[in-house]
């Protein structure tokens, strides 16, 4: 209470200083939420790809562009030493015309389900059941797609103009399955076939189509080495093991995360400078008060503690306000992006607590010099100060 009154002795100045910290923490919270979301996606992806090798037709550009390949690769892969099972997969964009999006785009996924029992990335079902090999016209919907498709168990959803009956709804996985719809392999082959140019279609058999393969190594076989062997054996295909995946993704996200946090920290440091300014002014204005306190026997440590308390208070109030504003902002932005599946902010508790603590620590550090200056004042001179 006394700290509050001391800080707000000059209301406008206190308000402006706190506002400076608020802006900094706001930036840290918003930017940090963005980085946290990316980290989460990357970690999810890393888990998803942790023990298998993903094979696709090599193509330029990478990402999620679709190049069809033949399932004839599957027996060749399975003939390799370290391979237990190779499963054909299809992954195509949910909307054929979908533009750029944040993170993973909405996908239609399918698999011949041969590797189902070996899959270490277990998904759980909020409702319903997984697909079975003999299903046709059925779909399992990822958690982020439920609202978009208005899906319920037993209801019919449209996928590329075709009707599918929803048999399962997934729990949130925080990675790829969330914004995808899984359909039977044959149905996916048919969708993939229809996407192809007519010239290509005439030369292909739709039942031989896939977009990739998931290779499950035998126990004890290093998936990274296996990926390398596949790359060596099958030129024209690209095999990605867990390590490669992690390298590809982590490198690009690390730079992004560093920039994002850097920008936020710079704005916070500016806020810290204004705390130094405010506290220095405050100490000068209250020189006489420091003299009075010393005449009453206040120790240097006590004077330092008092002024540090005030600057920590400025940091803390600015931090909490910035956190609140940042929280509201990320909430609103995520709500606005919810319908399009672009929830780009993730305010984690470690980010929330970290930002406020950082603001308080910044306040304390900024208050160090002014407090030390106050404590060193000569009491007699301070008492004479007008």
């Amino acid at each position, binding site marked *: 209470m006394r700290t509050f009154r001391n800080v707000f002795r000059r209301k406008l100045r206190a308000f402006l200083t706190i506002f400076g910290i608020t802006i900094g923490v706001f930036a840290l919270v918003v930017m940090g939420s963005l980085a946290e979301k990316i980290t989460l996606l990357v970690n999810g992806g890393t888990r998803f790809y942790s023990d298998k090798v993903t094979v696709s037709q090599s193509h330029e550009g990478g990402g999620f562009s679709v190049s069809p390949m033949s399932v004839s690769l599957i027996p060749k892969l399975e003939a390799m030493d370290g391979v237990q099972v190779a499963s054909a997969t299809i992954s195509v964009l949910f909307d054929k015309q979908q533009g750029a999006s944040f993170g993973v785009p909405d996908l239609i996924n399918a698999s011949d389900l041969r590797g189902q029992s070996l899959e270490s990335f277990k998904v759980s079902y909020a409702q319903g059941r997984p697909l079975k090999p003999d299903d046709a016209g059925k779909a399992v919907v990822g958690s982020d797609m439920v609202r978009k498709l208005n899906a319920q168990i037993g209801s019919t959803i449209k996928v590329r103009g075709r009707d599918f009956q929803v048999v399962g709804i997934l729990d949130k996985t925080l990675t790829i399955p969330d914004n995808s719809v899984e359909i039977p392999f044959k149905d996916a082959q048919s969708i993939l076939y229809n996407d192809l140019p007519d010239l290509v279609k005439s030369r292909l058999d739709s039942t031989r189509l896939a977009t990739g393969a998931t290779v499950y190594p035998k126990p004890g076989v290093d998936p990274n080495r296996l990926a390398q062997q596949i790359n060596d054996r099958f030129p024209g295909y690209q095999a990605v093991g867990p390590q490669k995946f992690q390298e590809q993704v982590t490198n690009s996200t690390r730079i992004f995360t560093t920039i994002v946090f850097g920008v936020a920290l710079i704005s916070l440091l500016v806020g810290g400078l204004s705390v130094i300014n405010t506290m220095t002014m405050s100490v000068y204005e209250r020189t006489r008060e420091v003299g009075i*306190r*010393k005449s*009453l026997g206040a120790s240097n440590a006590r004077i330092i503690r008092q002024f540090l308390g005030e600057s920590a208070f400025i940091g803390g109030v600015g931090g909490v306000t910035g956190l609140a504003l940042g929280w509201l902002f990320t909430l609103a932005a995520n709500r606005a992006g919810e319908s399009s599946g672009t929830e780009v902010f993730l305010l984690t508790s470690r980010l929330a607590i970290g930002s406020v603590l950082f603001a308080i620590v910044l306040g304390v550090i900024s208050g160090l010099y002014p407090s030390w200056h106050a404590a060193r004042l000569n009491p007699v001179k301070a008492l004479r100060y007008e």
Partner: protein
Amino acid sequence: MSSDVRGEAQSQARSGDTRLRALDLHKTYELGKENLVHALRGASLEVAAGEMLAIMGPSGSGKSTIMHIMGCLDNPDRGEIWLGGRRVDNLKSRELNRLRSKEVGFIFQGFNLIPTYTALENVALAGEYAGMSRRRAKAVAAEALAGIGLGKRLRHHPSELSGGQQQRVAIARALVNEPGVVLGDEPTGDLDTATSHEIMGMMREINQSTGTTFVLVTHNPEVAAACDRKVCMLDGVVKRDVP
């Protein structure tokens, strides 16, 4: 501790012991490179326990300096200060802080209350600095303020109090830790004659009822006349001891 100090002061007052002794104090201030001010040039002074002493003298004679040094706010360049039988001029600043918080009280001309604090908080602050818990300090402060007739002004800020009331808050603050010595620097300087009278009367009464030693720096002959004894300072030396 503080009641021990009180008891000691009272017994010394009865026996006529020395409460404060300044021996051959020298103090030079450097205002600029070539501008030295010799504030004290061998000032010596003894104050008996329970005594009320006035220090008079023209501006610049060293009155305030000797008061600050005797109150452990400043160190002499040379000379000795004895407070209640203990030499204090050579103590470290930590120890001086402790002495100021427990054994010395100050009253200033401009009252020197903290403007954002209430009367109660201003007085309690001295208790806190002397090591009391905040709650205890407030209780003791409320009692001290009630004792000088400000029981109904506890929550008032200095700006809401008259000059006389502010100085009474300052007196309560100086006395809340029951120090052996109260040092006043022109304690009535900012007050009108009637209020000045009232404040002097109050200090005199406290002096007589508790045995607290008072040393008052003043220009006012009436204040000096109300004291047990007065001394004069001139050019940094205590000149005359007028009985």
